[in-house]
């Protein structure tokens, strides 16, 4: 549970996150994921190209995580240790995955792709952005005032 330090707000960190976000968003647009039609083509088996998008991205991140956690010391701009993205398993992971999947299948849009879609000037996607915020608010409101939520504190503060 490394809480954010003041270093997280330094200009260098901010600029690097902006740069990384831009590369990430450029890739989403180039890959076609910013277009719901292309995602729906994949989910309906008309074009399996998205296998190369998620596969390519996961391979790159996998290699980088592997090398950094084994051979690199600490992140230069923050002093953070390099970790893998490991979340605890509970029923919410399954229920959330199922609900997300239904929503993705209906709309052809996921969070990062929706932001990228705004970037390519696709105004109707704002309906999806509004929907995502409403959904995030609804689940947060319900879970905040219910005692039996399965959520446990994660060891890796990411995502």
């Amino acid at each position, binding site marked *: 549970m490394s809480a954010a330090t003041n270093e997280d707000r330094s200009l260098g*960190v901010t600029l690097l996150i902006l740069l990384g*976000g831009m590369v990430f968003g450029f890739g989403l647009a180039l890959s076609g994921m910013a277009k719901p039609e292309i995602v729906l083509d994949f989910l309906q088996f008309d074009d399996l190209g998205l296998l190369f998008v998620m596969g390519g*991205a996961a391979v790159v991140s996998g290699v980088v995580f592997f090398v950094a956690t084994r051979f690199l010391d600490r992140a230069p701009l923050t002093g953070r240790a390099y970790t893998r993205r490991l979340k605890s398993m509970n029923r919410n992971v399954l229920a959330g995955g199922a609900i*997300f999947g*239904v*929503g993705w299948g209906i709309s052809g849009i996921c969070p990062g792709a929706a932001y990228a879609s705004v970037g390519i000037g696709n105004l109707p996607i704002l309906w999806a952005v509004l929907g995502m915020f409403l959904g995030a608010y609804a689940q947060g409101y319900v879970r905040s005032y219910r005692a039996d939520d399965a959520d446990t504190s994660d060891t890796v503060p990411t995502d």
Partner: protein
Amino acid sequence: MITTTLPLVAFAELFPRGIAQYAAGGLLIGLGVATIYLGTGIIAGASTFLESTLSYVSDVPRFNRTKYLASRDWRVVFTLGIVGGAAVYALAFGEFGWTTAVQPWRLLGGGFLVGVGTRLGKGCTSGHGVCGVGSLSQTSLVNVATFMAFAIGTAQIVAALGVSP
């Protein structure tokens, strides 16, 4: 030479737009994650932004957890970067202003479920699908298998009902 052309025909049917743009886009998505990770140690996902940003306007306890308050500023920067990077692509390749034909009710309703599901399930296509799978996290692999199965099933039903695009 039917034996050599058959696989090519099948390939063309599965990948009617080719694979170059898909693979290049995927590599860049991974490169964006890697850039932030190598410099800062931060593993950036796209869906936490939905909750951490709500803390600016909502007092609901879940959105005001320490880790969200600590990361909400850079998450806004990350999201603005995604918007900006996509805009650079669209302007450079003359695609700016492309508009989806998917109906607003599907974007709003599907988006609502995406908002619920990604936050309940601890991540989305980037957090679980790229970073979690890249970490060989069992939790992430289970989540990805689940959302893929449900997304494919749902999209097939939507298509079977004649909803188009």
